[in-house]
């Protein structure tokens, strides 16, 4: 009897625990945990090589430097500055993005040949970034509150176990109906993302490899591989050594500071 009662109690408790968290809540909780583990990075600097791979396997390389600034304001997201080094004809060209949670993001382009700082439209979410399989929205700083979430399942992924979460973009002009994100349950690192187009067809798959931990906290991949299933093309992003807390300030991400580039 006693055993039966405790079993009953356990069942009720379990049901309450499960019932307390809808798949949407659990999805958001996972996203918040990913975000929490990434907080306090202040700023980040990394050199990237972008390799475009066409359907026949021919490759073409671009080199870029990425600087990111953590922004903790309520309405604003992080800032990112991308500077091109290769191809040489666009060397020095820079793209500055200031993300906002509700409002449209702000974007400026710096054209070194004319020394011109040009505010550009940020509505271009779906267009290709430099001829790659990454679109502008794939490379924008990720902000938890710009998406909705739904937890799907917990399953093995390679040697790890992953939390599988569906992600729905909540901003205008997205090229995706949803993303499915595989996040390992140990360190909450995104291992794989499947992108579904607006017709809900699988369009692209992104795979992360070679995660390394920096400053005993921040996990970053050495390689991101994006494969487009529709056109057979791919783009590989290879990262150099990441540096955190380098002392960058908000003014380093001011549009007027772009002209210091070159």
């Amino acid at each position, binding site marked *: 009897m006693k055993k039966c009662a405790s079993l009953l109690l356990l069942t009720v408790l379990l049901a309450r625990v499960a019932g307390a968290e809808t798949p949407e809540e659990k999805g958001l909780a996972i996203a918040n945990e990913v975000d929490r583990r990434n907080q306090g990075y202040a700023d980040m600097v990394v050199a990237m090589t972008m390799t475009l791979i066409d359907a026949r396997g021919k490759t073409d390389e671009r080199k870029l430097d990425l600087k990111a600034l953590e922004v903790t304001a309520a309405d604003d997201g992080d800032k990112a500055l991308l500077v091109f080094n290769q191809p040489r004809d666009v060397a020095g060209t820079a793209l500055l993005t200031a993300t906002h949670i509700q409002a449209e993001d702000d974007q400026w382009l710096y054209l070194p040949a*004319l020394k011109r700082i040009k*505010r550009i439209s940020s509505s271009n979410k779906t267009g290709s970034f430099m001829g790659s399989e990454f679109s502008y929205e794939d490379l924008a700083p990720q902000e938890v509150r710009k998406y909705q979430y739904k937890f799907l399942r917990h399953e093995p992924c390679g040697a790890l176990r992953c939390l599988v979460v569906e992600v729905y973009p909540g901003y205008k002009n997205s090229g995706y109906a949803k993303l499915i994100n595989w996040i390992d349950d140990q360190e909450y690192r995104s291992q794989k993302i499947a992108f579904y187009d607006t017709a809900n067809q699988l369009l692209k798959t992104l795979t992360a490899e070679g995660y390394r931990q920096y400053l005993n906290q921040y996990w970053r991949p050495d390689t991101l591989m994006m494969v487009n299933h529709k056109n057979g093309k791919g783009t590989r992003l290879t990262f150099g050594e990441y540096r955190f807390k380098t002392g960058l300030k908000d003014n380093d991400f001011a549009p*007027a500071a772009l002209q*210091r580039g070159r």
Partner: protein
Amino acid sequence: MNWRACGLAAALIVVAADEAGAYEWSGMLAFDNRVFWEEPAFPEQRSQAYYPSLVMQPELRADWNGEKDRFTFIPFLRAEPADPQRQHLDIRELNWLHAAGDWDVTVGVAKVFWGVTESRHLVDIINQSDLLEDIDREQKLGQPMVNLNLIGEYGTFGFYVLPYFREQTYQDRRGRLRFALPIDTDRARYASAREEWHTDVALRWSHSLASWDIGVSYFRGTGRESAFDLDLGDPFNPRLVPRYDLIRQTGLELQHTSGPWLLKLEAISRAGQGKRFFAATAGFEYTWFDVLSRGADLGVLAECNHDGRDANPLVAPPVPYDDDVFLGLRLSMNDADDSSVLAGVLQDVDQDATFISLKANRRFATDWILEVKGRHFVDAPPDDFVLHGYRRDSHLQLRLARYF
């Protein structure tokens, strides 16, 4: 300009950069092919149709002190055997930049751009245009300056002291793309007794507020555009002598960015060249992104130009924009080769003056660029001082450039 001093300075920089260790050579080498298909308008102009030329623009940068300090040296050379006037050497940049968080200072020969519109750069005044390079006034001569920028919560304040003036480059009487009368650039006159050594000053405040980008500027000094004095010393061979007046100019740049719309305005009020006048360029740019889901962006541009200056080139510097409309189309393929095309028409609303321009470029191998530029002067009435001189100078330029 004292080339020997510049050469010495450059050599010193190379040595210093080598000491510092962190220096980089880059730049561009191009082979230009210009073709004019009409007979020239003036009898003394060359009737030659094809003009090949070579362009060199090496760039040296050296940084130290954790990238807070940088030396930049960018000489420019065009070698054009068939047109000695267009063959020229310039120092586009030779400066030291020190950037420290919320302020930066540049000392030396540098380039500065102000503005938001596409068909005309009305507010932009720091650098002299290199008209020999291109008539679009986007190619600039290096300007000696001391520039201090303060970046803060209330926007950016830029202060400029410009100790030396660079004269406008003009085509000679034998070359294509000249004005109706030959220009005697050797005898340029100045309103200031100090001539090119008059110290010019400028100030600009710029800020980005939500969807608005704003710039307000003031310039006091030698006007970059020249008016002309008529020299009738030889009555059978009248000439124009460039005259550089002292001006005061207040400028406004405004852009509103919302979704695919960019709304733009540039306006100036200038005193010192005849009566004080007002000029403005206003318009929009609308872009369809990822057209037909093929990745390309298609933009339409429309801008109105108004310029209230005295139409007499003996009073105020001549420009082809008194009341004109510009319509343009920009196509960016967003492909691996960065292919893009920009086509535009400038139409005078009061009379038959039409100017068509086209620019297309793509990368065809790593670091090689192929660029086509075309200019077509459809109608140019005699009272349009600039375009009338150019009326038979429609041309096409094919550039093959290697970047390194």
